[in-house]
Structures are given as C-alpha cells and as structure tokens.
C-alpha cells in the first residue's frame, strides 16, 4: 500500500504558543523517516498531527494521496507506537495485539492468523497469555510494535519508542526495528531526540528546532554537510568558527587566520563576507600528507588531551581565540604523543570545511553571522 505522507504548510499553535511553524514535508512510501530535535522542537506534535490526535491550526496533511487533515485517528490508516508503549494493562499480549482487528470486526479466523503472524514477527511466541506487567521493557516494546503492525497500517508512527530501554537493548532494538521496517516495507515515521539513533536507522532525517525544519536529508548528508549552525551542533560534535572571507575564486573561499595559516572551504561566499565554518573533529589531521595543495592549515596550542578509548580528543586553542576539537584514532602515533602545552599544526582538506552561513558583506551588521534557518524542504525566510 502506498504510504506516502505529505504535510503542506502545517502550523500548530496552542494559544499564543506556535509549536510547529509552517512546515512542508514529503515522506516517501516505505521510507524510514526520522524527526530529530531537542524536546519542545515540535517533532512529537507533528507526529501527533499525522496520527490525528492534534488538528493543525493551518495547512493540510494527506496520506496516500487523500486529505486527512480533519479525519479522526480511528479512521486513519496509520498506527502509533507510543512512548512508554501504552499497552492495555488488563489484557494479555494476545488480546492487546488482537485489539485493532477485533474493533474493526475482522473475521475471527483472520484475527487469529494475523495476530499469530504479528507476534511471530516480533519473536514473542510463547508469551501470548502474559500480561504486560509480566514482560520486560524490551518485550513490552515488541508487543506495542505487534499491536500496531497487525493492522497493516500505511505508515507506522513511533514516538521515542526506545526511550525507556537501556543502552544495550536500545542498540539491539534499533537494528530489529530497521529490519522489521525493511521486511514489511511499511513507512516508518520515527520521532527521537537521540541523533545516533536517527543516523543509524533512517533513510532520511528532518532535524527540527523551534517548530521548523532546519534540514531534511539523508544521514550522511546531515552529518557531513550540515546546513545550519544548529544542525552542525546538534548532530555529533562539531567545530564552529566565525571568519571573514579574504579571497574568493573558482568556488573556493579562503580565510586567512594569520601568516601562513588559512582555512579553505568550497564555497561561493564573496570576499569580505562574514561566515561560519564547521569542521568535524575526526576530519582534522595532525599531518598534511595527501590533503592536497589547498588544504586548511592552522596552528595552535594544545589545551587538553582526553583519552576516549578508541580515540583521543585533543582540544587546540587557536591564536584567534577560537577553539578546535580534534578526534584522532589511537592507532596513530601522533595522537598518543600529543601533550598539553605543545604547539601543533592542524590540517584538513578543503572539502571538509563547511560554510553554513554566508551573509553578503553589505547585509551583515556585525561579524557574527546569524544562521539562516531555511531547510531543504523549507525555503522560507529566516525564522524569528
């Protein structure tokens, strides 16, 4: 069944408080789509609007081509997996899973068959007669999944479903969820505040903040090419440096830090404009070997060295007062030799500097460039 979901200009306000602000979103059929953001960013409200628990203040939502903006949850072909599962405590696993089909008056034989299939698909055979309280957190999670999937929804909506599980179980369930999603071909809309979870499972991620979508793209794109300062900061660790472009030629912007030290980025930013540049800590090298002629090269003083097991984190203070975090794997001798107080030169390829906000020189009031917040699917003016 075609499970694509389209949100057009959807806004939700509770009184004066605008929680979701004019978002446009297209979620493809069979896609594992995540909405990622800090608490209060509007991701859960967006999910609840897709489920039908909230009606948008403005805009429309369509599901498999049909406008469902005002259709109640019971009449939508989507099912939700709730935070903390919301299993019916007085019913057995079997009764919980059968609930949706019995309500829809599906024939008894088919109810049994489909329930058995759903229970099997989440590997809960033998637990049919247990009550939810007699199950572990992970098993309850599986029941919640089976209870939703048994209805064969066009899309499954998951609201931080792994939030209550411990780290190890969460990792296992991540893989299992992804596997179930691929096997059933169901569209998954997944809400989480855990960036690693989103990166692990998703086909595409919408990073949300203050009710808008900051960026909507695949995990690699989001991580390696963050579009806004918020995305760069929220996903993984990132270095963010405020700079002024000194030279610009052939899609390559150069920012001089001091004599012989420069940061180079692939960008069309004009000379004289203020920009923010992000560099991922693991992209920064301690040697210049093989990085190309136009690599960035910056000197600084090591202010901290932290051993992190598989890698070492080195904090370097630049002459400009900026601070860079560097991650090096511990198989490199140079990483192990780094000592606090040493001066060091850092190198990275031009492809690994990202200009996330380039304001034209005449428009920028100060040196601090305000990040533009328009996302991929959201070509609006900067949101205030």
């Amino acid at each position, binding site marked *: 069944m075609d499970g694509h979901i389209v949100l057009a200009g959807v806004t939700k306000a509770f009184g004066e408080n605008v929680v979701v602000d004019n978002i446009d979103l297209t979620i493809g059929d069979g896609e594992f789509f995540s909405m990622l953001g800090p608490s209060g960013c509007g991701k859960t409200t967006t999910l609840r609007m897709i489920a039908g628990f909230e009606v948008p203040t403005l805009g429309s939502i369509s599901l498999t081509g049909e406008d469902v903006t005002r259709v109640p949850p*019971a009449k939508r072909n989507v099912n*939700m997996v709730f935070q*903390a599962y*919301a299993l019916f*405590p*007085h019913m057995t696993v079997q009764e919980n899973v059968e*609930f*949706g089909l019995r309500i829809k008056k599906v024939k008894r034989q088919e109810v049994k068959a489909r329930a058995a299939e759903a229970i099997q698909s989440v590997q809960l055979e033998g637990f049919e007669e247990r009550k939810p309280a007699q199950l572990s957190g992970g098993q309850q999670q599986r029941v919640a999944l089976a209870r939703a999937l048994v209805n064969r929804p066009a899309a499954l909506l998951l609201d931080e479903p792994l939030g209550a599980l411990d780290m190890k179980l969460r990792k296992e369930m991540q893989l299992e969820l992804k596997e179930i999603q691929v096997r059933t071909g169901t569209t998954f809309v997944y809400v989480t505040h855990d960036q690693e979870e989103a990166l692990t499972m998703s086909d595409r991620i919408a990073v949300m903040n203050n009710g808008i979508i900051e960026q909507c793209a695949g995990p690699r794109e989001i991580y390696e090419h963050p579009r806004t300062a918020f995305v760069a900061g929220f996903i993984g660790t990132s270095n963010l440096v405020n700079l002024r472009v000194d030279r610009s030629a052939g899609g390559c912007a150069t920012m001089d830090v001091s004599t012989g030290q420069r940061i180079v980025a692939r960008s069309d930013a004009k000379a004289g404009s203020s920009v923010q540049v992000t560099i991922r800590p693991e992209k920064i090298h301690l040697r210049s070997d093989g990085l190309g002629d136009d690599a960035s090269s910056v000197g600084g003083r090591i202010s901290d060295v932290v051993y992190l097991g598989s890698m070492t984190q080195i904090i370097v203070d630049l002459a400009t007062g900026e601070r860079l975090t560097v991650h090096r794997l511990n198989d490199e001798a140079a990483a192990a030799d780094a000592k606090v107080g040493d001066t060091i030169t850092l190198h990275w390829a031009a492809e690994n500097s990202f200009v996330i906000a380039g304001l034209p020189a005449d428009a920028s009031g100060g040196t601090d460039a305000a990040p533009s917040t328009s996302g991929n699917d959201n070509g609006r003016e900067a949101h205030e």
Partner: protein
Amino acid sequence: MARDSTFVVISPNGKRLLTLFFAIFLIILYLPTVLLILFSFNDSTVATFPLVGFTTKWYGLAIHSEEIRLSLLASLRVGLISAFIATLLALMAAYPLARRNVRGRPLISAMLLVPLVVPTVVLGVALLILFQKGAIPIGLGLESVMIGHVIIALPFALLILLPRIASIDKRLEEAAYDLGATGLQTFRIILLPLITPSIISAFLISFVFSIDEVVIASFLAGDQATYPVYLYSGLKFPEKTQTLIPVATVMIVLSFLFAIGAEMIRRYGDRRLQGR
C-alpha cells in the same frame, strides 16, 4: 533509602509509651461498640452490668418486629438507589475533570466537594424547606431522603473516582482510538475495566453513608422511618431499648463489612492496574 527517611528514631521508653497510648486509643474507640454487642446477648431488660446470662431473644424480637423490618427495607432501598445515583453522577463529573481541560476546574471541584463541609443539619433544613413548600415541592418521603443522600455521598464517590481516573495513562485511551475504537468502545473496553473496582468502592461507601445517615433522613423521611431514624426515635421508649440493641449491632457489623469490602476492592483495583 527513601522509605527509611519517613521513620523517626524513637527511644525504647518512647516506644513503650507510644504503644500504651495506642492501646488506650483503641480501647476508647472500640469499647462502646464491643459493649453494645455484649449487651445485645444479655438476658436483661436494662443494658447495665453485671451481665445476667446469654440470650438471643432480643434478636428474635427484633426480627419479628414489623416496624424494624419496614425501616430496614426503607433504608436498603434508599441506600441502594442513592448510592447508584451518586456513583453515576460522580463518574460523569470525574471523567471530564480528570481528562479534559475544563475551564474553571478548581471552582467546579470545590463546588462538588462543598457538601463535605456543610453541616448535615443545615442541609437537612434547607432540603426540608425546598421540598415541602419551596421550588421543588415533591413533599417528604423516601425519595426526598434519597436526594439528600445523593448530595452528601457525591463528594466521597468523587474523591474515590477522580484520582483513579487521573492515574490511568491518557495514552491508553489514545492507543485505543488509534487502533480504531470509538469513544464509547474505548470507555467500555479500556477505561471501565480499569476503574470498575473504584466504581464498586465508591458505590459501597455511598451506600454505607446512606444507611448510616440519621439527620437528613429524620428531616425528610416523613411517615416511613429509615433504619437509623427508627433506631433514634426508639430510644425515647425505654421498653423498646433492648430490641434496638441488636438492630444497632447488626448495623455496625454491616457497615464495617461494607467499609472493609470497599477498601479490599480498591486495593484489588490498584494491583489490577499494575497488571498483577
């Protein structure tokens, strides 16, 4: 340990003193009741010590008294019907108060709980005026008593039901809607089974209040006395006193059983909600 912090360390002598205090407290609380039960089996026309001998004749007399039988039936009728209405009204008030964002919720709750603090004498007089010649002239009788008892039982029923409904995760109902259930189906299949013990508990407490209530009943009962009204009026006649004691005993025991029953059912409900 959080639990330990709720206890205070007491010296051994302090403990002995507290035990003594508690024992005295229990004796004062239960002595009259025990004496009453004792005298109900005493073979004497006056309820005094020394006890003369064991007899069940007072129970026999009480059972064969037409007046007692009629008053008992009247009380049962008033009790059952008023408890039913009070529980139903409380349920209808508790659900929106617990679930919806009702405007002026604190005021509504306060108004529903006012009968708790209005003296029953005042309420009795007010209802007497209202029913006899006031705006609602339905006259006196058991129906009037029922209405009075609904008013005083309602806050108790509400106080039992409201926290229980509020304690049930709202997402259970959302999950049911999400799976295709209507509002009525959700109430019947999800909410009702989870709050049934509290409903029974609210009903029993309301019932106990009604069969125990004498002030409003004596104002509004008219010709047909309820059980406690009969008991109270009977005290004016010394020759009746001994037949009244078994009546009172039965009442005490019944109230006690109902109260214990209500509490046991409430606890069963707690366990059920936790799914055990």
